[in-house]
């Protein structure tokens, strides 16, 4: 189905590396407030799809329409104001924050870069940390002083600072300790309900996908197959 209202509408996406076609005519949509899971074995083209959605790599064919605008047709300069609205959350919580920046500065950085930093900045950072279940006192710490689960929450707070509509969640809980995984999934579910966030959710754990996603598609050899 292909409502014109979809937040993200990917159509006939093609990504090639030389003669290898990593993503071959892939189409899917994600609506506001919805979670679409994208599954598949290693090497199936998930990461290339994610890179094309984030426009970190320009696709070799097809369309990536976000909020009704065709991203593949935009110049880098035209893309810049849209980028904050699609934010990634990665698997390795420590790898996604700079080890040399305090958590507070990591969360504040998008506000500064996007020219939205003002006198209310510190309070907004504290509110974001609180929103992801971190005591704002953790803002003074460095990533290595946090547990994996706390660090992933800080990464989510940083993504939220950009006021995104779509989060690309690339295995967001698979590197976390089992005893903290459920807490982070609950947080993501609450954020989605409260902020009507859309999630493109990469995850290889079928039970997690069944619990968490509204719909699931599966990739194999660069193509979508019935999930």
């Amino acid at each position, binding site marked *: 189905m292909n409502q014109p209202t979809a937040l993200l509408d990917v159509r006939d996406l093609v990504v090639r590396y030389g003669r290898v076609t990593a993503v071959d005519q892939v189409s899917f949509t994600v609506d506001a*407030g919805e979670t679409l899971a994208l599954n598949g074995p290693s090497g199936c083209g998930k990461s290339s799809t994610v890179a094309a959605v984030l426009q970190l790599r320009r696709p070799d064919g097809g369309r990536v329409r976000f909020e009704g605008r065709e991203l593949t047709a935009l110049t880098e300069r035209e893309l810049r104001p849209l980028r904050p609205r699609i934010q990634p959350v990665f698997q390795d919580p420590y790898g996604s924050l700079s080890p040399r920046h305090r958590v507070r500065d990591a969360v504040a950085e998008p506000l500064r870069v996007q020219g939205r930093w003002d006198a209310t900045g510190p309070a907004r950072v504290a509110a974001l940390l609180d929103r992801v279940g971190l005591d704002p006192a953790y803002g003074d710490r460095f990533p290595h002083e946090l547990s*994996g689960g706390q660090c992933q929450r800080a990464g989510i707070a940083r993504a939220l600072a950009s006021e995104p509509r779509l989060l690309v969640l690339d295995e967001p809980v698979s590197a976390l300790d089992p*005893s*903290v995984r*459920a807490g982070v999934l609950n947080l993501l579910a609450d954020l989605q*309900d409260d902020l009507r966030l859309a999630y493109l959710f990469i995850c290889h754990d079928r039970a997690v996908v*069944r*619990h968490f996603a509204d719909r699931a598609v599966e990739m194999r050899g660069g193509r979508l197959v019935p999930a």
Partner: protein
Amino acid sequence: MPVAPSATDALLSVRDLRVAFGALEVVRGLSFDVHPREVLALVGESGAGKSLTARALLGMLPRGTTTSGSVRLRDEPGSYAELMGATRPTLAALRGRRIALVPQDALSALSPVHPVGDQLAAAVRSVTGLSRSQARARAVAALDRVGIPDAASKARAYPHEYSGGMRQRAVIAMATINEPDVVVADEPTTALDAELQDQVLRVLGEQREAVGAALVLVTHDLGVVRDHTDRVLVMYAGRQVEQGPTHRVLDRPRAPYTAGLLASLPPADGEDGPAGGPHRRGGSGRRRRLPAIPGSPPAPDALPPGCAFAPRCPLAEDRCHREEPGPWTVGDGHEVSCHRWDEVPYPATELFLERPA
């Protein structure tokens, strides 16, 4: 100690194993036995000490660690070799032949500059008097046995020419090629996707059957534990919280930590919960929340007094914060370290549902 299982038929017998970095003890007194053809799971999260335990079994700890306790490997019926404090040559003679490690990172376990078959053949020749060509033939057979297609030509290939799953199999072939009695596998599947995980575990199981070895499987995945192991030892912050036959521990956990881990898993296929249809959230738009263990595991240099899990435990009472519990035997080979083990509900869903903020 209240539990002293008879060690007479065990292949591997571990008593009061401790591993420390300087004054910081990270494995704090583990005891367990592994019997022929048995699969024992060591379960815990990062920092619980399970990988250090695995390496301590082979005397392969990093520099700067000190160990104590006893790790005994059966020599012949009734006679054991003590590995703790054994000399380098003694350990070297046992490793590979009697006890072998399947390390976590398959790529770093293989040399990048030699063909895989040569590396396996070298492992054979290091413990047997076989000729070069005989050792080669055995290497090819070992690769074939772990399901590497076209093993003869793949034996001539280098590790970078292997896929991730094939590398992991090659490492299993290497660890089992001299038919050790005990195979220690340290998270052999964490880096693999779900299908490869199943394949690799099946290969490990077949190897165990083929050579009659026992397997110590380090993992944090309770699904793997349920499907592939006979006994399970659950660790938290360097200590055993629960140990017993896998079905007993997983069907009726007595430690709140184990019960919480199980409660926080999303229901597996066929269990309750809405079907995987497209719109399964109720009219309210709110999906069910997962039960979750609050907080995070403690750092080894900041262990709380008493039971290390008490700060996160919904059942904790005064004595839990003061006295380290157990272990106590609560049934057939089932040990638990919890002051309130007989009050732990199962399923523990309600206990771990987050209270509304």
